[in-house]
């Protein structure tokens, strides 16, 4: 058994001690190497109210077996002593004591932008997040996000849409063990990000999602980013925690303006009112990063042009979700004519349906 393997096993076991949080873990590991700390824990000689409980757990654990388990799962265990530990996190206010990584850490060697937002987003919001993800990845900017439902997931889907030659890989930061895809329906996305980019977590394998882990996860997202972009957020959303973490680190926050009638844009509009720069296209982000935009205008409009009725219907949307009934009242078209027009617009990709609501689609992927 090599020394590094034993260190990795010890570090992983330390991160999994019952009741240990990011701060306590970082404190324990502040100066010493993980093996030495582990020996102290086994002996019950750490200065902590949990020391006895930890010692009981620790005596039953085997660092070598733990290290083998992580090797088997292809998850790297990094402490600040490791050369591979991301420099940007090592320099942070609250660096994770132990960082678990799946995939290529080289994905972090690009300019990085965090795209965050609400899980309960509008289709328009998700569509825009996807567009940002795609264009930033194409421009060589790494997208950091939390793989949650809604905006987070959509941003990374955009990154994966753009997968190609000159491309920045996705960076996912999650709040639970790297073998516990959460939400479960994001398993394919989770795997794709792990294979093509990097997945990071400070929770050991098998750790279930717990409410306290998500704000801690948001701090890592903020720490990794050069810029934070909030696409949609409710008035008191979790993504505003990421914003607070970013501001505490002096990292610039940008926000996407939304309709004043969209409750999922209340938080972002508030950010704009407080002085954040607005994002209306990926170029705004590139400019904020000091990169030169241009040269990549979005793909030419491939959708067949709508007919007269279609144009009337599109205008009636006013970029807000609408039901069939609202469209009837606004256009004055007969229900049959309108319904046919709606079906044609759906087919052509001008609008999309979510339940009984229809939304305009700004541009096609």
């Amino acid at each position, binding site marked *: 058994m090599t020394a590094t393997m034993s260190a990795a096993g010890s570090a992983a076991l330390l991160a999994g001690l019952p009741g240990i949080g990011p701060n306590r873990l970082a404190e324990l590991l502040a100066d010493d190497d993980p093996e030495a700390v582990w020996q102290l824990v086994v002996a019950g000689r750490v200065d902590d109210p949990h020391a006895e409980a930890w010692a009981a757990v620790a005596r039953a654990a085997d660092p070598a077996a733990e290290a083998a388990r992580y090797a088997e799962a292809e998850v790297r265990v990094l402490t600040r002593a490791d050369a591979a530990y991301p420099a940007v996190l090592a320099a942070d206010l609250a660096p994770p004591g132990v960082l678990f990584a799946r995939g290529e850490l080289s994905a972090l060697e690009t300019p990085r932008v965090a795209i965050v937002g609400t899980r309960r987003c509008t289709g328009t919001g998700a569509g825009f997040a996807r567009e940002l993800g795609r264009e930033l990845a194409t421009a060589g900017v790494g997208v950091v996000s939390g793989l949650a439902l*809604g905006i987070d997931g959509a941003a990374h889907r955009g990154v994966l849409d753009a997968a190609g030659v000159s491309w920045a890989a996705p960076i996912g930061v999650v709040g639970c063990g790297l073998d516990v895809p959460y939400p479960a329906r994001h398993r394919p996305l989770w795997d794709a990000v792990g294979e093509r980019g990097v997945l990071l977590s400070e929770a050991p394998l098998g750790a279930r999602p717990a409410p306290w882990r998500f704000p801690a996860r948001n701090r890592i997202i903020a720490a990794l980013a050069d810029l934070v972009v909030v696409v949609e957020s409710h008035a008191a959303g979790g993504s505003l925690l990421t914003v607070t973490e970013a501001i505490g680190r002096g990292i610039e926050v940008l926000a996407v303006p939304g309709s004043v009638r969209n409750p999922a844009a209340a938080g972002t509009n508030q950010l704009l009112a407080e002085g954040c720069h607005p994002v209306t296209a990926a170029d705004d982000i590139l400019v904020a990063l000091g990169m030169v935009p241009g040269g990549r205008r979005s793909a030419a409009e491939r959708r067949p042009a709508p007919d007269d009725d279609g144009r009337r219907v599109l205008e009636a949307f006013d970029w807000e979700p609408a*039901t*069939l009934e609202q469209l009837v009242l606004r256009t004055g078209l007969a*229900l*049959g004519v309108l319904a*046919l027009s709606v*079906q044609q617009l759906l087919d052509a990709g001008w609008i999309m349906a979510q339940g009984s609501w229809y939304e305009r689609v700004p541009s096609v992927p």
Partner: protein
Amino acid sequence: MLGLVPSASLFGIDGHAVTVEVHISSGLPSFTVVGSPDASCREARDRVRAALLSSGCEWPLQRVTVNLAPPTVRKVGPGLDLAIAVAMLVASGQITQQAVGDRSFLGELGLDGAVRPVAGTLCLTDALGTGALVLPVPSAVEAGLVGDRILHPVRNLAEVVACLEGADPWPVPSPIEVAPPPPPTDDLADVRGQPVARFALEVAAAGGHHLLLLGPPGAGKTMLAARLPGVLPPLSDGEALQTTRVHSAAGLALPTGGLIRIPPFRAPHHGASAVALVGGGTALLRPGEISAAHNGVLFLDELAEFPPRVLDALRQPLEEGAVRVARAVASVSLPARFLLVAAMNPCPCGYGSRPGGCRCTDSARARYARRLSGPLLDRFDLRVEVTRPSVEDLLGHQPGESSASVARRVAEVRDLAVRRGVRSNSELPARRLDEVAPLSHDATRLLTDVLRSGRLSARGLHRVRRVARTIADLSGAPHEIGAAHVATALGLRVDPALDQPAPVELAG
């Protein structure tokens, strides 16, 4: 000494002829009821005794055995009281068997001798022979619906005894006063704006398509549903009799004329049990709400609040138009062909269907969504979002089209369906759709596109074609179905976004 008196007992919605036999012999005074009586039937002893005594008759202090034949039929309720009392009088020699003749007796007795109505008089009368029937006065109208029966409506036991003794002539029913026209039900003219919801209601009525109304609280879902009976055609003679039988058996109040002509509207609360909804109960096998809604409308408000088990019990009756209720004692088939209208909020907070509008947690939404099974949701051919009418509509506009005018179109479309050999377009068999609902070239192309894009499943296709048939009929009945008709049918069949946000599919 023996007394024999014919009567009838109710089971499900069927009456069964019962002969009440009373035997009195010497021995210690006792009173036994045999022949599958239930508890309320056994309690007849106390009611009959008090009624006889307060009507000036004697109660024999001997051994009394009451047999309700045939014993295979379970007898439920107090409806045999009057027959038992008369049989007692015969058996104790107070009147003769000849005086009874072939008369049957129906009615519950009060302690003062009053004869009270029993549930299911219509069904019970049906089951009895052609002899005269002695029954409580309030039941005469209902029994009269059977026709060609001699009825003797009575008020109390003393009156019956007087007639049996020959002291008084048997009373005859007073002529039924002509039923006043039914009071106007809620009119569609009260509904302002909401053109799509109104149209969906019209399509539901015209084609017999089940309708699901989605929308936030206060959007007017209940108001719309309550106006459905007003646009449905009145019941035919056969339908009216069937529905009246069910209501009679369930002990529900009948209209003045006796016969139910307006399609019934039943709106059980979501606290209703499965038995209350589909019928049953241990003894009586009473018709439930879905049978009471036979040939009418069953409205389930707050659909997702109904226990899932109760809702799934609706699936079989929805397919078959009848519900088979089986119990250890027996099983009965109760008619239950109804138009199902349901209303629900899209999520617990009620604002969830508008993208970005929901305030519920993920788990709350998931729990809410799980309450509705896919197969049940699939039964709704029409699923529309009801949005709150705008202020301008509420205050400014003309009143909407009246129920009477919509009902005329509905009746025409129903006639067309009858000419196609079905009661309504929703019953068109899939194999006949090509013949009776041919698609125009454009409509075929639209459906091809929609199927290919995955917005419609193969199973949904037939349902959309039936709804499109109804929409085409409403718009003047061209033989061929156009693209606009199909598109409208698709627009009226949204997938409730119960489990949003709609996942953006992962590319590649």
